[in-house]
Each structure stands twice: as C-alpha cells, then as structure tokens.
C-alpha cells in the first residue's frame, strides 16, 4: 500500500472491542467457567480508510474502504460521488470480495501445445509477446493489431496509448455488445452519443427497455424514486415488468424489437394533431418535413398489431407527452432495448432523439439535458510525449461508417481475425468470448490469430482462448488515473490503492502496459508512473493528487450545469437532423422510418424471441464467480428462464420445471420461472450465467448463456451485435 493511502484517515478502533464486550455482556453473570468457554474477543486492530471506485460495473461508484490489519472490512459509500450519493448497490458490496477470490489469476500463463496453460515468468511472457508483436508489425503493419477493452480509469488511457504508440488505431470498446447502436444513432440525430433525462423533475418520463432498479446506479434509483414521489408519470416500455415497477405508474408490455414503431406512432400523433413544439423544431431542426411525410401513415392503428399495444394507449401516451412537455422525455436508455439488440436499434435511437425534439425538451427542467463535464488539459510534452499521429482509420469504419470511432465495432475486427487481416489482439478487462453473440463462432475467429493476449483478474472465457494470459491485480490493489465524471455538477474522483498486492506476481494495468510497451520497443511513451501522470492530469484542472487522495471526490461547482441553454448541435448541419446524409450514405433511410427486426418469432410455430437483461446483483458475466452473489442466484433460482404464465399453462409447464431451449445454434436445459410479468412472445434469460470457464469454480455450469443462442451478425451501418435477433423454441425436458 502506498504511503498516502495509509495516512488519509487512519486511526485505531480501540473502542470497538470494548463496545462489543459491553453489548454482548447483557446475559453474562454465570461462573468463571462460562467465561472460559465464551468466544474470545479479538484485540482491536489498526484501521485505515482509503477511497476507491467500485469495479462491479461501469458506473464505478466511490466508496471508502476500511482496512483493519490489512484486511478489507467495511465499505462506506461516498456521499460526494455523483453516482453513489452515499449508497452502493448489492453488487458493489459483493464484488469487493474479488480480491480474495480463490480463482484469481496469480501468474502469467502461456498456452501449451496440448491446450493447457502453464505458469511462466513475466520476463518470458513479455519477451515472447514483444517478439510476436514486432513480427506482426514488421510483416503486416501495426494495422494488424487490435485492442478490445471495457473502459476503466487507467485502462482506457493506457490501452489507447499502447496501441497508438505501436501505430495502430484499432482500439475498440465493448460498445458493439453494449451501447454502440444507441450512441451512434443519437450522434446522427443530435451530434452527441448521450444525454441525461431529468427524471426527478420531470412530469413524464418514458423508459424503453431500461430499468434503473435492475441495472443499478444508486443516483438513478434515487432520482426515479423522487420522480415518483413528486408525482411524475413514469412509463416503462419493456417486454418484462422490471423491478422499476415499484416507482412506475404504467407498464407498456411491448413486443420486443418493436420500440421503433411505438416511437414513430407517437411522433405521428404529435405531428398529425399539431401537438409538437413547432417553434423549437423550426429553430433547431433540419429535415423535419421530410420525416413528417415519411411517417405520415405510421399511425397508432398501424403500430398496434406490430407492438402489441392498443392504438388508444399509444395515442394517450403521445398526448400525455405533449401535455407534460417540455418537462418530459424518453429516457436515453443504455444497453436495454436498443443499445445493440436489433437490426433497427440505431434507427430507434435516432427516432428517440427526434421525438424528444418534438417535445422541445432539450436542456429544459424536467426534460432531456446535456450536462457539463471537465476534462484534462495539456500535459508536459517532455514527460508525457504524444504518440505518433496515425493516418489510418480504425478497422471497420468503412464497413460500418455510423459506428462511433471512439468505440468501433470489435465484431468486425474479430471477423478480420478470421480473414487474416488482423493478426494480433489484446483484451483488457473484456470478456468478449462470453458476452457477444455466438461465442462458438467467435472463438473460431479468434483461433486464427497469431497472437492473442488477455489481461484480466480471473480466468474468463476469453482468457481460456488466449495464447498468453497476464494477471492483473484486483481493483482494490491498484491506484488508477483520476476519473472525471460529468453531470449537473462535474467531479473528479479517485480509485486509490486499498490493499497491498495479494498475489506478488500480479500487476496493475498501468505497469502491465508500460512493460508490454517496453517489450514491443515503444517504452519511451511510458516513462512515468501512474502517480506522476495522475498528478500531472489533476494539475491541469487546478488540483493535485495529494488533494484528491485526501478528499476522494472533488466537485467543480464553477462548472455546474444550468437549465435553459440552447444546445450547440454538433452534427454536420449544426441542427437536429431529422434527415441524415450519413445514414443515407450508409445504406439506411435518410429519416428513421419503420424497419422490421431481422427475425420475428412465429407463435404458431412455437417460437419465442429470446431476450436478455440484467439482475441487480450481477454485471454481465464478471460477477458470476463471486460466491456471495452466486449464492443469491442459487438460493432464489435467479438463473431461471422467465416464461409467461399463460404460455406455461398451454404447454403444461410448472414453475420451477425443467425445459430445453433450442434453436439451430444451441440447445440447453434450464428451469423456468412462470410469471405474469412477461410478454408472451418472449422468453427472458438473465445475461449473467452459463459460464463455460471451468476455472471459475463458483460460476461454472450455472444456467445458460443467452449469447449461445444468438447468431454472429452485425447491425448494418451501426455495427452492433444484434443480441436479441434470435428466436428459440421450448419444450419440457424429457419430451
């Protein structure tokens, strides 16, 4: 542990033991022999308090970790962290135990000829990787290298710098299997990948496929609850009645994959009846008339049979929106229904922004906001030299031109591994091999690589495919670069090192990438420590590492957001684009119109659409190996597939009964939860299970992986994984 971490707030918990004895003493008063057999109170230990950022999901909430005699004890949520607001979620408490997991990676591993892994030294691992990287660069150029990473404070900096130092632009996030379509679609309409619904102050907010209560960020749950208490009309559009129902007024159980039709039909009502904000549209939009004409026939009556929602309901919702505007919006969602799920996901995202524009709600109190942020300024070029400018574009940007360059579509990169265009791939904090469609096919692509390196804390499915696995220490054992968080009041916050490194051969990501760079011959770009870089970054915003360590989270009140400003639209036209040239060029309609999903379930043939989704105690596949969390899954049968109760009655399936789900790609047995909370055209499989890595002893073999049933395909234009474009059949086990 670093010295600074030790001194932040250290004290002796001397009174603790005394209090414990006193409290437990109420029933004493027996003889001395009883004292002798009673539990001995352990002497109080030395307590240290260190600020860190949770790593259980991408929200990275802040908390103070209490360490007693070197062992992690309590987690106390950070009041100042904008996402935590004094709370952390169930995952956060559980995931902290990753540090002590018996399944941690402890040494660099190399795949042997027989497919098993052997532990090797860092020197050997780095030498061999470095040599192979140099061979690839010499023979095929740096374009033949790619990186896939799920952004983390240090990781997003170091992965990009490492690849750019090598001359490769191919740095991908997990976006293609998360929020790529949504952010790319937004960008086509409003010039930026995200916005924030002012749920708490809204009169009406509609959520499409997103559940604050299941994919938890504490501040979002609080906002939803306050909205509910303030009397906002909260509408959940979701094939599944999520746990957000506690604070919602209405569930619209839409047929999955048809959200676009709902939005278009609501827009049709607003336009048809003149209920939209005409002045706002006139001032801010281009192509409105073109879109209005294109969706003129897309009435609620048209949408009803597609969406499964009555026309009168769609009409009512549109009217309620108009009445609530501008303190109303459709919430931007994240992965949910259109982050990467369907062929029409990008178009759904586009339509959503256009609908919000009709409400004139941008930057209005209770509407949809573009909040502020703070970013790092220019660093000393001597100490932190810029990496060479790269002329090439990220691979996939031609084929999927709408995909955000900052994310890229790693699906296409994987396909290029198959063709041989990409020869070497690195994976940092990414379990692509389990979390993306058709893992079996994906594995066969990755198998063609000359070099595959995985950096992780545990033996993920992706690690199982690697040539080299490099062990990172857990998030509690490393300090990372400062994390700048935007919002109504932007802040900077720190993941400091809480625990001493537990396994001596594990390293933090900054050191791993610095060593890799050195081994690959580009070490000159990494001639600094993470502390030096962090301090330098903070000094560009008038702070220091020491200050941030002391405070944990520091706000920038001078950069606070205020309502009312007309956004500066960063689109090519400088306006909200109801029609987009770029979309047309990419082969999509200029204006978002109805686009059928790639597949639709045929109920008469016994087909259901397979949908995924988060549960509050897990994040994708990365928390499934945590004992305390998996224990909840097993105790409450959370790995079960949900099926609609009337469907179950027709098929004679009982709650808890075993069924086989099957399609042309995969079949597997699973117990069912028979529920009234699900649209009858769908089967819901939670997205966390079906771990196939035997080295994750807790997670292995529990449940099914929804991705096994999804074909490998890519959303046209946007590059998303289309993770819900699949249908399955179901039969009782043993039939």
């Amino acid at each position, binding site marked *: 542990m670093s010295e600074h971490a030790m001194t932040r707030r250290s004290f002796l918990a001397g009174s603790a033991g005394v209090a414990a004895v006193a409290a437990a003493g109420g029933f004493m008063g*027996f003889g001395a*022999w*009883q004292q*002798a*057999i009673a539990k001995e109170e352990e002497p109080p230990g030395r307590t240290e308090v260190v600020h860190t950022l949770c790593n259980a999901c991408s929200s990275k909430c802040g908390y103070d970790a209490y360490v007693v005699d070197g062992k992690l004890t309590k987690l106390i949520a950070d009041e100042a962290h904008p996402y935590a607001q004094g709370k952390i979620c169930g995952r956060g408490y559980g995931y902290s135990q990753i540090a002590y997991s018996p399944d941690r990676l402890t040494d660099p591993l190399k795949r042997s000829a027989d497919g098993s892994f052997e532990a090797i030294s860092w020197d050997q691992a780095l030498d061999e990787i470095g040599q192979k990287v140099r061979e690839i660069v010499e023979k095929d150029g740096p374009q033949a290298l790619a990186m896939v990473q799920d952004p983390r404070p240090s990781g997003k900096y170091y992965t990009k710098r490492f690849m750019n130092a090598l001359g490769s632009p191919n740095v991908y996030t997990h976006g293609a299997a998360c929020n790529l379509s949504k952010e790319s679609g937004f960008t086509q309409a409003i010039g930026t990948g995200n916005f924030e619904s002012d749920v708490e102050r809204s009169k009406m907010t509609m959520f499409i496929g997103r559940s604050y209560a299941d994919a938890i960020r504490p501040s979002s749950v609080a906002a939803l609850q306050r909205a509910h208490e303030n009397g906002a009309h909260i509408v959940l559009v979701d094939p599944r009645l999520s746990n957000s129902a506690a604070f919602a007024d209405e569930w619209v159980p839409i047929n999955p994959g048809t959200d676009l039709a709902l939005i278009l039909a609501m827009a049709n009502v607003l336009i048809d009846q003149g209920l939209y904000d005409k002045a706002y549209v006139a001032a801010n939009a281009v192509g409105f008339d073109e879109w209005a004409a294109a969706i003129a026939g897309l009435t609620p009556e048209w949408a009803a049979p597609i969406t499964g929602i009555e026309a009168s309901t769609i009409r009512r919702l549109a009217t309620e929106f108009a009445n609530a505007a501008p303190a109303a919006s459709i919430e931007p969602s994240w992965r949910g229904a259109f982050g990467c799920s369907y062929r029409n996901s990008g178009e759904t995202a586009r339509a959503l922004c256009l609908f919000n524009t009709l409400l004139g709600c941008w930057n209005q109190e209770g509407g949809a906001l573009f909040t502020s942020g703070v970013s790092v300024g220019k660093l000393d070029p001597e100490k932190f030299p810029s990496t060479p400018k790269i002329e090439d574009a990220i691979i996939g940007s031609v084929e999927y031109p709408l995909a955000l360059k900052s994310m890229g579509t790693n699906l296409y990169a994987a396909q290029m591994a198959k063709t041989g265009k990409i020869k070497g791939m690195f994976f940092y904090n990414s379990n692509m091999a389990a979390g993306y469609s058709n893992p079996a096919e994906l594995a066969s692509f990755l198998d063609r690589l000359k070099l595959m390196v995985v950096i992780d804390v545990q033996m993920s499915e992706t690690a199982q495919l690697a040539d080299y696995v490099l062990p990172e220490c857990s998030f509690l054992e490393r300090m990372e670069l400062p994390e700048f968080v935007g919002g109504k009041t932007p802040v900077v916050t720190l993941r400091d090192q809480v625990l001493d490194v537990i396994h001596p051969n594990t390293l933090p990501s900054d050191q791993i990438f610095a060593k890799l760079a050195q081994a690959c011959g580009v070490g000159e770009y990494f001639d600094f420590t993470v502390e030096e870089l962090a301090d330098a970054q903070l000094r560009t915003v008038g702070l220091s590492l020491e200050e941030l360590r002391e405070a944990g989270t520091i706000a920038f009140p001078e950069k606070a957001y205020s309502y009312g400003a007309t956004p500066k639209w960063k689109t090519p036209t400088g306006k909200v684009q109801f029609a987009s040239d770029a979309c047309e060029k990419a082969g999509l309609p200029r204006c978002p119109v109805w686009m059928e999903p790639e597949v639709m379930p045929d109920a008469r043939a016994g087909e259901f659409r397979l949908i995924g989704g988060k549960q509050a105690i897990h994040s994708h596949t990365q928390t499934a190996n945590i004992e305390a969390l998996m224990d909840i899954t097993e*105790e*409450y049968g959370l790995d079960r597939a949900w099926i609609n109760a009337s469907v179950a009655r027709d098929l004679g399936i009982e709650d808890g009964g075993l069924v086989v789900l099957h399609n042309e790609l995969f079949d597997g047995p699973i117990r069912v939860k028979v529920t009234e909370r699900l649209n009858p055209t769908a089967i819901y499989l939670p997205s966390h299970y079906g771990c196939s890595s035997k080295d994750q002893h807790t997670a292995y073999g529990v449940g099914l992986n929804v991705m096994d049933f999804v074909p490998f395909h890519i959303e046209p234009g946007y590059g998303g994984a289309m993770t819900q474009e699949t249908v399955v059949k179901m039969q009782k086990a043993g039939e």
Partner: protein
Amino acid sequence: MTFEPIWGSIIAWYLFLAGLGGGAYVSAAFLRWRHPEAVAMIRIGRFIAPVTVVIGLCLLMFDATAGLQHPLRFALLLTNFGSVMTWGVVFLGAFTLLSLAGAGLSLAKRDVPWGLDIAAAAFGVCVAIYTGCLLGVCKTFPLWNNALLPILFLVSALSTGMAAVLVVAIVRHPEEFNRVGVFKKFHFVLPLVELLLVASLCFVTASNASPAGYESVMSLVAGEWSVVFWLLFIVVGLVGPTLLETWLLFFSPREFEESRKAHVISFASDAGVLVGGFVLRLLVLVAAVPITMVTPWL
C-alpha cells in the same frame, strides 16, 4: 426460495432410538409385572434401553456441530428450563442413569429393586413423550404443533420398544417368547392405535389455518413422500404387522404359533414395526412445511 428441512435423518435416528429405548424399559417393567418368569426378556429390555438411548445421544451431539467443537458448552444445556430440550436433557439423563443401573444390576444377576424399574420406566415414558413435545412446541410447522404428535410418538415408542425386545427374544430366547401372551397382545394393539392417531394427525393438520398444514399432509399422502409413507410406514410399519399378528394370535393353531416358521413371521412383523418407527420420525421431520413458506401472509 425453496425450503430445506432443518433437521434430517440424524435427528430422526435420535428421536427413534430415544423413544425405542424408553419403550424397551417400559417393556421390561411390564414383563416383570405380567410375565415375571420371562427373566431373559426382562433383562433384554433393561439392556436395550440404555444402549439405544446412548447411541441416540451420541448422534445428537454429533449433529450439534458447534457443541462438538466445544464440548464444554453441552454443560450449558441445563440453563434454560423454559426449553423443552432442557427438560429432555433432564429426562434423558435420568433415564440413562436409571436404565444403566437396571441393566448393570440385571447383568450382574443382582436383584433390581422394583422402585428402580418403575422409576426408569416412568422416565422412559417421559423421554418418549418428550421426543414428540420437542417438535410439538414449534409453532412454525402445523404438522408438529399439535397435541396428537407427542401421544403418537409415545405409542410408537412403546411399540418399537416392545418390538425390539421381541426381536431379540425370538433369536435368543424363543421359549420365553412363546410364553409372553399378554405382552404380545398389548404389542399387537399398539399399531392399531397408531393408525388411528396418524389418521387423526393428518386430518387435523390438513385443516390447519395455514395452508402449510395441508401442504405437509399432501406431501405425505400424495406428494414427494407418498411412496415412503404408504409403503414403508403404513404397509410395512403398521398394517403388515397387524395382519400378521392377527393371524398368528387369533387364527393359527397353538402348535404353529410356537413353530420356527411362526417365529420367522413374528420376526418379520416386529422388524416391520421398527422400520415403521424410524420412517415415522423421518417423515414427520422432512415433510413438515413451515407456515412462512407457502406465503399465506404475502
């Protein structure tokens, strides 16, 4: 969330053996009263009692893992006289000491005072009733929380105690076995009483205010445990022995009753009673559904 029974087969063995031990000593006292000439069988009864009870107690201590790790804690068992289990410890302790004394004197061919036999038999009855009360005070389970269960366990304890004495007598002292007619007739009646008690227990429990009662009974008679219930408990444990003994006691000639063949049949019938006795304890433990799990309050 599914419900896992809190107590399993180890506790079932304990309840069975404790009851059997109590019943065995009652058998010895009864024999001494009505068949004083059956000296060997009296001795068998006095001997079985402490052996089975001590085995049962060992199982109990083995199941109580926290106590097993810290044996001194077992001394604390006598600190809460509001607990049925504490009373059970008193009864079991007294019964073990008294039955050991009886067995010891008996083995040493010394006279066992009548007072000792009566006291030990009385504590034997207490132990048998206690095994039912132990469960009976748990309001959580309608199958347990009724006044029939202790009586049922007492009758079953007497029945299994007598069966144990008879089984050993058939093998070791068939000549005495042939001469204890009154004893055997009493023994014959007990499974019939048990049948009535079990039927009553099922009817009363199934009508409990909580659906948990109905669920428990249904799991016995028509659900998860129905095969064990009907085959091993009702047929092997109660009806089978009753039919066999009816025939032997009332419808077969005296010569046959004393034949080796009849002894084999008697042995089978008594062994059935023993199996039924254990299965009864096991079923009562595992089939009980708590009132909290069938969501009557949700």
